[in-house]
C-alpha cells in the first residue's frame, strides 16, 4: 500500500535530521503530487486553514504565554513554598512536595516541559541540599512534570479536540480525576521508597507558615478558579479562557508579585509599590520583560504550530485519498475487538512517542484511529485520555522525550542517567496507563456527571 511508503518516508526523513514539520509536509506533498490530482494550491490552502479553520488551536499560544508569565513572574516559586509547608514533613517530604507542586503548576500550565522547568529548576536544587541523590530528584520531577498535559488545562488535549472535533471543555474535565490519581500514585510510590530507603523528612511547618505560604501562592493558584470557573460558569469558551489566563498571569506577575516588569527590583530587595510608580500600569505593557516573555512564548508557539500545521497537511492528504476509511475497513474486517484495538493504539502511540513530539504525533494518529474507535463503541473522550497518557509516557522515554531533555538540563545530568533515574516511576505510569485504558469510568465520570453523556455524531 502507498500509505506504508508515505509513513516510511516520514520516519526516514525524521531520522536523518530533517525538521519534523518538513518531514511531514514534504512526504505529504510528494504523496499528493504522485497519487492524487489535487493541486499544490490546495496544500497552501490547508496550511493557512490550519489556523483559520481550527479556532481551538488558538488556546495553545495563549496557554504557553500564561505559563511563561507565571514562570518569569515568580508563581512557581510561591507554589513550591506552599507545597513544602503542606507535605514537607512526611518521609520523602520534599519529593512529595515536588510532585504536589508539579500538580498545582500543571493546573495552571498546559505543557509538561514548562512544568518541569518551572518546578524542577527550584525543587531539584532544594532536594539535593537536604540530602537526596541527584538521580532520585531528577526521576521524581521528570515524571511528575508529565502531569502538565493530563491535569487541565492541556495543550495536548486542545490538539486532540481540534483533530477529532470533540469538546475541549469535556476533555479538560476528563483529565481531572486521572490527573489527581496519577499524582497520588506517584506520591504513594515516593512515600514507600522513602520508608524503604530511609529518605530525609523535613520539619513540620507551623500553621502560621502554611497560611502565609497559602496567601502568597493564592494569587497564582486563583488562576485555576478563573480558568475552570470561567469555562463552566459560562463566562468564556475554553479558547478564550487561555487568553484570560495569559492576561491574568501578566497582571499578577507585574503588579502583585512584581517579580517582573517596571516594579521589579534586584534580588533581595523588596519590589516597588505601584503607589510609588503609578505610571507602571502603562509602562508594564511595553516593558522589556513583557516583550521578552511574549517573544519567547511566540517562538515556542511557532515551532510547535508549524509541526501541527504540517501534520494537518498530512491529514488532508490522507483524507483526500480516503486512507482512514481503508484502514478502518481492514481492521474491522480482521475482526478487531475494542480490547485488542486499544492495545494496538497503545503500541502505536508508545512507539511513535519514542520519536515524535506529542502534538504532531497526535494530529496524525487521532484521525486514523478515531473512526475505528467510534465503530467499536469506544467513548471519544476516553480515547482522548488514553492518548494523553501515552503522550506522557512518550515524554520520558528515549530517544525523543521532551521531559528527559529538559530534566537533564535542569539537573545537569547526562540524558542516559536521567532515563535510568526515571525508570522506577515510569513503572508507576505504566500501571496507570493500563488502568486508564481498561477502566473508562475514571476518565468519563466527571464530564458525564457535569455535562451529561457525550453525544456521538458520526
Amino acid at each position, binding site marked *: 500500500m502507498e500509505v506504508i511508503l508515505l509513513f516510511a518516508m516520514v520516519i526516514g526523513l525524521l531520522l536523518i535530521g530533517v525538521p519534523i514539520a518538513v518531514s511531514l509536509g514534504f512526504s505529504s506533498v510528494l504523496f499528493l503530487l504522485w497519487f492524487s490530482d489535487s493541486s499544490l494550491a*490546495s496544500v497552501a490552502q490547508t496550511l493557512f486553514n490550519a489556523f483559520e479553520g481550527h479556532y481551538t488551536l488558538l488556546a495553545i499560544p495563549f496557554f504557553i504565554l500564561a505559563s511563561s508569565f507565571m514562570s518569569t513572574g515568580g508563581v512557581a516559586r510561591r507554589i513550591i513554598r506552599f507545597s513544602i509547608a503542606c507535605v514537607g514533613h512526611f518521609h520523602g517530604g520534599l519529593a512529595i512536595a515536588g510532585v504536589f507542586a508539579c500538580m498545582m503548576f500543571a493546573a495552571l500550565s498546559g505543557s509538561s516541559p514548562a512544568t518541569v522547568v518551572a518546578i524542577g529548576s527550584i525543587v531539584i536544587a532544594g532536594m539535593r541540599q537536604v540530602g537526596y541523590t541527584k538521580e532520585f530528584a531528577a526521576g521524581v520531577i521528570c515524571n511528575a512534570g508529565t502531569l502538565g498535559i493530563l491535569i487541565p488545562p492541556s495543550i495536548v488535549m486542545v490538539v486532540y479536540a481540534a483533530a477529532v472535533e470533540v469538546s475541549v471543555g469535556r476533555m479538560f474535565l476528563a483529565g481531572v480525576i486521572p490527573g489527581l490519581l496519577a499524582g497520588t500514585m506517584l506520591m504513594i510510590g515516593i512515600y514507600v521508597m522513602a520508608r524503604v530507603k530511609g529518605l530525609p523528612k523535613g520539619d513540620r511547618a507551623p500553621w502560621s507558615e502554611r497560611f502565609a505560604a497559602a496567601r502568597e501562592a493564592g494569587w497564582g493558584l486563583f488562576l485555576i478558579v478563573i480558568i475552570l470557573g470561567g469555562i463552566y460558569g459560562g463566562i468564556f469558551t475554553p479558547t478564550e479562557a487561555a487568553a484570560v489566563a495569559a492576561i491574568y498571569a501578566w497582571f499578577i506577575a507585574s503588579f502583585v508579585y512584581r517579580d517582573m516588569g517596571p516594579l521589579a527590583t534586584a534580588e533581595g530587595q523588596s519590589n516597588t509599590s505601584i503607589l510609588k510608580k503609578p505610571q507602571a500600569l502603562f509602562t508594564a505593557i511595553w516593558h522589556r520583560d513583557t516583550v521578552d516573555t511574549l517573544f519567547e512564548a511566540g517562538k515556542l508557539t511557532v515551532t510547535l504550530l508549524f509541526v501541527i500545521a504540517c501534520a494537518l497537511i498530512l491529514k488532508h492528504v490522507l483524507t483526500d485519498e480516503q486512507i482512514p476509511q481503508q484502514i478502518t475497513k481492514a481492521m474491522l474486517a480482521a475482526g478487531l475487538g475494542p480490547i485488542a484495538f486499544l492495545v494496538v493504539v497503545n503500541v502505536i502511540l508508545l512507539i511513535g512517542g519514542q520519536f515524535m513530539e506529542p502534538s504532531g504525533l497526535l494530529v496524525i494518529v487521532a484521525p486514523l484511529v478515531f473512526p475505528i474507535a467510534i465503530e467499536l463503541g469506544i467513548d471519544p473522550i476516553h480515547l482522548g485520555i488514553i492518548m494523553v497518557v501515552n503522550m506522557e509516557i512518550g515524554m520520558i522515554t528515549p530517544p525523543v522525550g521532551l521531559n528527559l531533555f529538559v530534566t537533564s538540563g535542569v539537573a545537569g545530568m547526562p540524558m542516559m542517567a536521567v532515563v535510568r533515574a526515571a525508570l522506577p516511576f515510569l513503572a508507576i505510569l505504566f500501571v496507570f496507563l493500563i488502568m486508564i485504558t481498561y477502566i473508562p469510568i475514571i476518565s468519563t465520570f466527571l464530564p458525564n456527571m457535569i455535562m451529561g453523556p457525550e453525544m456521538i*455524531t458520526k
Partner: protein
Amino acid sequence: ACEEGEVVVKFAHVTNSDKHPKGIAASLLEKRVNEEMNGKMCMEVFPNSTLYDDNKVLEAMLQGDVQLAAPSLSKFEKFTKQFRIFDLPFMFNDMNAVNAYQASDAGQAMLDSMQKRGLQGLAYWHNGMKQMSASKPLLLPTDANGLKFRVQSSDVLVAQMEAIGGSPQKMKFAEVYGALQTGVVDGQENTWSNIYGKKFFEVQDGITETNHGIIDYLLVASVDWLDGLDAEVRDQFLSIVGEVTEARNSEAYAVNQGAKQSVIDAGGTVRELTAEQRAAWVEAMKPVWTKFEGDVGADNIEAAQKINMSMSN
C-alpha cells in the same frame, strides 16, 4: 475507488451522511451516479467537513480541487448579494413558498448569477424553516431583549438579532453546544433537523416554532469543470441531480417534522406562537428588509411576496 477513465467527482460537505437532509441527499446522489454512470463518472463523498468546511470548499472548487459542494445559501452572499434574500426574516411564509420562489424565474436566474465568478448553481436543496431557542421562554420578541444569540457569518442575521434587541455573537459551529450549555451564549436559531442532530434542545429552555427564516443549500459546480465534461455525460449527470433533488426536497419537510417530534419525544420543550405573537415577531424583524433591499433587489422581494400571497389564498 474510481476506475481509469472515469470522471472523478469529489463532493465535500459538512454534515453526517445518513440523518441530515443534505447528507442523505448527497449519499443518494453518490449511489445513483456510481450505479448508473459506472465507467463514465465516479463520485466520492467527503462528509463531516473531513476534506473541506463550507468556508474553504468554494475556494477549493474554484481552483479545481473539489467538483461538487452544497454550502448553505448565505455562503453565496460573497458572490452576489442577491442571495441575502434567503436570510431576510419572514421573507417566505413556509417551505412551499420557498420552493415556489426557487422554481420561479427569479430563483432560477439566481442559479446562473455567479457564472462570471466561476460558479454554476445546479439545484436548491432544502433543509427547512428556522426556529429560535434560548435559555428562557421566547414568546414575544421582547423576550429576546438582552440575550446573546449565536449567529452565522451574515450581516443580515446580525441585523435580525439586533432588531429584536439581542446581542449577536460569532462562534464556530463546533463550539455552540458547549457555549449554550455553560451560558456563554443564551440562544441560537436553526432548523429542527440541526437542533435535534446537534442536541441543542438539551441545553436550552425550549424551542419556539417561529419559522422566521430558512436554511437551504445550493448544490454547485464550477463553470469550467461543467464545460469540460462531455455533453452526454453532463446531461446524464444533471438529470440524475434533478431527480435526486426532487426526491429529497419533497422529503425534507418530513425529515424536519420528524426531528421536531424527536425533540419532543426526548423531553424538549416546543412552544408554538399565536397569530398575535407571530405578528409581533414579524413587526420587530421586518424593518431589516429596508436595510438590505438594495442588495437583494426590490423586484426579487416583490416576486417572493407575490408567491406568499398567491399561496395563502
